[in-house]
């Protein structure tokens, strides 16, 4: 009996320890799921003095510092940008993704001692409201981002134009034209095969393929990234260089280097493009922050860009040096995350990410150099799929419509203007192989 009692106590302590370590003590409920996906059902974010529709500029920026990303605050304070606000609106993700999250409530995913996720099938792994006091709150949010419905099961952004500008003068230095494709190999919720591809010996979670069409010196440059389901396993990346006509495997360092000389690192793609385990994640606060969400078709779109054959036009840019998207900004519920890279040689000391609580996209973040000084801001505008390209209607994807990566120190920016298309036919699996790089090369 004595032994049994000891075992019971030991077992209990063991469970408790595991629970404390992994943060699975609180049971997830369907209500948690509903609150996570529909935060604006019966609530509208507010801030004293703020009214939707107002403009935030140099004259009133101090009043709204609390609801601004620190980098955006600096931009507005310096007179580089006037932020045009609008009503907060819900952006509902695809019902299949939400349903997958609901299904997981009965047997929810768990964060293990390695900081990775067990028992995850699909959907949002941690829909419960995070608690700042929970030391794992940050990493769970990171997992929600990683397994988010970002571009759905697959999508293509084609074309996307990147422009390199001197922010001081507005001088347009380079224009690049890309196509980028995404494919989830696992945890798929919407497109066959579900929930994953059968032949996946490497156990990939996701693959990204990118090809540069212009300018000519970079034409045919292609990038392929493989992210593994095992988050502790390093990504693999390959670069096809047109002038060499061969595939080069990328060292990991090259994903934290300026990509093709732009103000973006490969790690910045889709706001954050690395493993969860590459950073330490800390939830700083849950609060209301202004984020760039817009109805694409309701914007005043770019007139200095080519119009696509089907009439699609690109989001426009303005502000100092034409470095800022002419988006509308909504006051939204945000998880403010401080993410610090574990790698000592990483060029960043931390990222302050404003993660949208409904979509788990990262529309706005600030990056700090090794000295802790503000280095870059990265804005990724989010568009409502039903007011975007006709192909995206009903896709339930928060459409990344453009970006602005601004090097505050160098007063330089790279802007991106996207035609994002949620269309499985544009991203066949054959595109995401090393051989696919050679195939596309010519």
């Amino acid at each position, binding site marked *: 009996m004595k032994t049994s009692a000891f075992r019971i106590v030991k077992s209990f302590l063991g469970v408790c320890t595991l629970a404390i370590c992994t943060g699975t003590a609180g049971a997830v409920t369907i209500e948690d799921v509903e609150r996570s996906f529909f935060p604006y059902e019966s609530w509208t974010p507010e801030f004293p003095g703020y009214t939707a529709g107002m403009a935030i500029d140099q004259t009133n920026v101090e009043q709204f510092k609390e609801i601004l990303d620190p980098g955006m605050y600096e931009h507005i304070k310096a007179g580089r940008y006037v932020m045009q606000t609008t009503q907060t609106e819900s952006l509902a993700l695809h019902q299949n993704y939400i349903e997958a999250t609901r299904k997981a409530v009965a047997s929810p995913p768990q964060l293990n001692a390695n900081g990775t996720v067990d028992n995850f099938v699909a959907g949002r792994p941690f829909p419960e409201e995070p608690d700042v006091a929970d030391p794992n709150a940050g990493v769970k949010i990171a997992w929600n981002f990683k397994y988010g419905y970002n571009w759905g099961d697959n999508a293509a952004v084609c074309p996307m134009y990147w422009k390199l500008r001197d922010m001081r003068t507005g001088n347009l230095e380079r*224009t690049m034209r890309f196509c980028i494709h995404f494919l989830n190999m696992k945890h798929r919720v919407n497109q066959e095969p579900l929930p994953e591809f059968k032949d996946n010996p490497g156990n990939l979670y996701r693959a990204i393929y990118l090809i540069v069409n212009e300018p000519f010196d970079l034409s045919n440059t292609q990038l392929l990234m493989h992210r593994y389901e095992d988050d502790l396993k390093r990504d693999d990346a390959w670069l096809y260089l047109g002038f060499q006509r061969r595939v080069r495997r990328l*060292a*990991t360092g090259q994903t*934290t280097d300026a990509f093709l000389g732009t103000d973006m690192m490969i790690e910045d793609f889709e706001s954050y493009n690395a493993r969860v385990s590459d950073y330490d994640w800390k939830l700083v606060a849950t609060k209301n922050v202004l984020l760039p969400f817009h109805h694409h078709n309701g914007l005043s779109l770019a007139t200095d860009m080519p119009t696509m054959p089907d009439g699609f036009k690109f989001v426009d840019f303005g502000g100092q040096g034409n470095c800022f998207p002419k988006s509308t900004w909504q006051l939204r519920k945000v998880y403010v995350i401080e993410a610090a890279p574990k790698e000592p040689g990483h*060029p960043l000391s931390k990222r302050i990410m404003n993660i949208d609580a409904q979509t788990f996209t990262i529309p706005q973040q600030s990056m700090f150099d090794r000295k802790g000084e503000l280095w870059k801001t990265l804005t990724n505008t989010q568009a409502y799929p039903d007011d975007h390209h006709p192909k995206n209607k009903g896709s339930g994807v928060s459409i990344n419509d453009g970006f602005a990566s601004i090097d505050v120190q160098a007063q330089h920016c790279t802007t991106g203007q996207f035609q994002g298309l949620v269309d499985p036919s544009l991203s066949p699996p054959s595109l995401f192989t090393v051989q696919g790089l050679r195939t596309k090369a010519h």
Partner: protein
Amino acid sequence: MARQKLRGWGAVRHALSTAGVAALAWACVGIAPVQAWSTVDGTLEVHGFVDSTTHGRAHGLGLSKQRFRGQLEFSKNFGAAGIFSSLSAHGIVRAVYDGVYDLNSDTYGDEAGGQVMGASTGIPTPNGPLLTPWGSSPVTAGNPALPGGGGFGFDVAANPNTGLRKVGRELGASSNTGQFGGGLELFTPVRPCNVDPRGCIDGYLDFDEDDLRFPEFRDDHRWLREMYVDATIPFENGNELNFRVGRQQVVWGRTDLFRVLDQVNPIDFSVQNIYEEFEDSRIPLGILSAEYRMGATAMFDDLNFQFLWNFEDFQPSVLGQGGQPYNILLAGDLFRALGNCWDNGCTVSNFAGLSPAGNLATDFPAHTLGIRQANVPDGNDQFGMRLEGVFKSVGFSVNALYFYQQLPSLHAFQPPAVNPFVGRGIPAAALPPFLTVGPETVFGQEFPRSYLPAFDIEFPRVLLVGASGDFYVDQLGSIPLKSVFRVEVAHTNGEEFPDTSKPGMYSTSRVMRWVVGWDRQTFFRTLNRNRAFLISAQVFGEHLLDHNLIETGTGSIGMPNWKDDFFLTLLLQTNYMNDRLNPRILTAYDVRAHAGVVGPQIEWLMSDNWQFILAANLKFGTARQVFDNNASANPYPPFTLPAGTCGPVPSANPPPCNAPTSSIGLFRGYEPLGRFRSGPIGMAQHEDELQLMVRFRF
């Protein structure tokens, strides 16, 4: 046309002014930023560039390249068509004019070369060895010591002492003499083949002035650089069968600067020796590539099988013709010198005499030694296979290629050659009894002779089998490597190498080549705060499994190539101004040759359209190596035995003095075989250059 002589800083000034004029010209005509042109539906896209490349060579050699180049590239995507899930066509059209043959015509054009003097170390003078004009050597026609006066000498009227240059003169040795009993010296005609046809090898290295000026418009229509159709047939299981048919580049391998597996397309070394990007120096060929793409399988992350058939006529690598600014190993100079020797006769310094104390310049008659012809195979029967994929994050390939050796092999013995030691008009019956009476001893009667440096150029069959891999290593124990490693290994069977111990002067050897490459991105924040440096190092190894080197007691004979050779390369590159200012430095070192090169370069992308590259290519090391020059071979027994070996010529000698024998390695020199030890870097020590390229892209 007015001729200019551009040398030293004059060449540099010319380069800078050319760039400036080009830039100004474009600016003046108000060229706005231009992008690629494409149709509204985006299925047809056309872009290209024009550029000017200027190379100024040090050591008084002046301008070595003034190339104006235009290139148009197009891609037409037909989308899905019939059984094909995708169908597209791609092409590259290129035109080049290299003005160096007009602007520096007295070095590389129709006024190049001059008179030459043959050296005789055997006749020393207060100013060094006796120097005698081409065709007037101490050993020439009318030698009283030989039967009938011998048959030496050649027709100087038909083969005059003009437009000639000593092979290897650029390397700095004013006279290849003073050691090793006096090294051989050969002399090559250097003017374009329409101006001076001497030594031009029909169908191989026979470029006239327009061929040199406009290399894309030679007979093989190189202006149509690439043109192929790409078609993919999908299968229900997701696999694909892809065909790419037409003139194209097929790139195998994972290395820079030197090729191990990347052997499908030959290389045009006349563009810029080994330093041109392979993209520009590979010679595209008509190839059918069929590729079965399995993608991810149960075992592999990616798996593909490729079959290649090169259906276009065989094209050897272009070495550069004698007289061209770039001819790798100076082989083009040597070949042209030897071609002239065969066709017209020639003077060779320090040949006759066979004495370590010194030898004599010798005038060989035609059809005695040299290169008779090049037998270029049709060669539309080259095949390749490759299995390529990714397994557990390791990229791999297994390759096989059955092809023709792209570098020439010189076969001696086959060309019947005349015996110059027997004079014209001596009937066989009148010859001394110690000579085997027969056609081989009658002047004018050509007869195959062992160990005689009279060659045909051949391109033998080679079977290459190899493999490659690349992988990333994040951590090695506690060491943060964060590096990519690239490995290639190739085994060839059938390659041929010079071999002075063999009657045919060549032998085959199996060869293992390998390379290990290491790439790492590393921040040096004091030099570049936000952008990493790419450090890329490579070690190449070459091992001749059947290497043949024989110590005779008087020297080494056999293969001049090193049994084991190693090359090291190091690339350091970073980027400033958002990759618009891109400095890099590339170095390479040939370990056995003790020869190296350092190539600093800075690229400035002024805009999407304008690109400027300023570079240098500087050599260091000990340059030239020596090897047995075969002068102690005995192809004409007993005349060609070293003095005293078999008694005074032409006294009777018993066998084996009457049997041809190989060199005994008594005489060594830079020429002709030392080049195989010096390697492509050592043999280009004179090619120190300042280079400027201006390109406008559209």
